[in-house]
């Protein structure tokens, strides 16, 4: 079964990237996590995302387009990256979710991937 594991972090985590005292610990933790994840042999796909400020969002309301620069004020935690894993059970993926640095600072979400029909 395939599962998607998504890492959500508050803006304060992204700010650590700009703090010379914290950037090493921040990067060190994530790099180690990603390496361990790849070593597990479970990874089907995965990427890290550039900070929310590099992104934009689109909404259409009453037929009118709304385009907004990130970060999006109404969101407290922002998607920072994801993996798609091929895993024997949800339990295994939850174990990996617990190890993600985002679990201590934000939220790590695990969702089964819908099977394609035909």
């Amino acid at each position, binding site marked *: 079964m395939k599962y998607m594991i998504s890492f959500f972090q508050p803006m304060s985590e992204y700010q650590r990237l700009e703090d010379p005292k914290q950037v090493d610990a921040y990067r*060190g933790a994530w790099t180690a996590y990603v390496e361990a994840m790849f070593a597990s042999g479970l990874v089907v796909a995965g990427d890290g995302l550039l900070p929310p400020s590099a992104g934009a969002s689109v909404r259409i309301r009453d037929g009118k387009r709304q385009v907004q620069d990130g970060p999006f004020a109404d969101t407290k935690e922002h998607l920072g990256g994801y993996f798609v894993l091929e895993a024997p059970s*949800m339990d295994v993926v939850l174990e990996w979710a617990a190890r993600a640095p985002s679990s201590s600072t934000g939220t790590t979400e695990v969702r089964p991937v819908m099977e394609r029909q035909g």
Partner: protein
Amino acid sequence: MASAPAPPAAEPDRASRGRRAAEAAARESYGRLLAYLAYRWRDIAAAEDALAEAFASALTAWPRDGVPASPDAWLMTAAKRNLLQAARHAKLAADPAVTILIGEQEGMTAGPHDPPAIPDERLKLLFVCAHPAIDPSIHTALMLQTVLGLEAKQIAAAFLVKPAALAQRLVRAKAKIRDAALRFEEPEPSELPQRVHAVLEAIYAAYTLGRDGALDTQSADLADEALYLAQLARRLLPEQAPASAEAAGLLSLLLFCQSRHATRAGDAGEFVPLHEQDAARWDRAMMQAANETLWQAAALKCAGRFQLEAAIQSAHCQRAFTGDVPWQGIAALYAQLAARAPTVGALVGQAVAVGEAHSPVQGLALLEQMDDAAIAAYQPWWVAKGYLLARQGERAAARECYVRAIGLTELPATRDYLLRRAQALE
């Protein structure tokens, strides 16, 4: 620990003592009442529902009519009434269990001033929860729910499983106990050691979960709950039975581990490994109690896994008295433990002890002998290897192991500690 247990002095002593006493009493009654009802009724789920309903009616009745002279007897009567009502609905009136319960119902109305004592059937409940016919992976969760009354939501957090999935597994296990009519009796003497071992295993699993993870309860963490269960098992088993040796062994083990609880985190909540902990701050009274319990176990001359683990912890605690860690002795104890119960944890512990007692090379050799699949995602293996490689001066290789360990670490305090270790090797 990341859960940052509140320092004991955080609230006024008396209030804290009072709160704990109230919680302990509630837990004692819950477990006793449920065990008694489930034992008589042979249906754990039905007993749980009836007891929950009784607690709910107490919340309206007691403030209105005052707290009864014997709250337990009141709850028991209410829960039995609920069970009988449910049985009547299901037209089970001819069921022998119903007849027994009705008979006792009458016997129990002895008057408010002379409340009958409720027999303690919790040991039988522990045995049923760890019955060989029940999937071992659910033993611990069943005990936590039935004997301690923890919610599936809390247990799921400790086990790191989806709460809905755990709730379903619990329901299935209870249905199996009911439908297969598993015996609620104490096991025959011949099967006692095996059955006791299953109970102790489940309690120990609760303790390691509590020690390694963080349980989200308002009252106490899972390690305390496990200590309570270990004390209960020790108290309820006949003291002189050989099977009691391991129950005492487990209790001793947990007491030794708990005696060092206060020193495992520094002032800022940072992780402090065992060898850097201030041994002068370990709880001497608790270590003493642990030692006495271990001696009582040894007197029964029936060695076992938990007594060995307790002896290892006892050796670590010697540092508080002599200033030295007796690594040779620890390595010898681990060798016995690994022969008896070669768990991943025991094998890693043995490798580190051998590395300290003899040489890092010998310790590393033991680590390399372990099964690749078992250690790939086992964080302590990578920490141990990094540590022994660093002792040997192989800094780059040691650093790589620490980095892998960082990626497998859940608690931020431990992760920060390992990040510092890795950095120091750059």
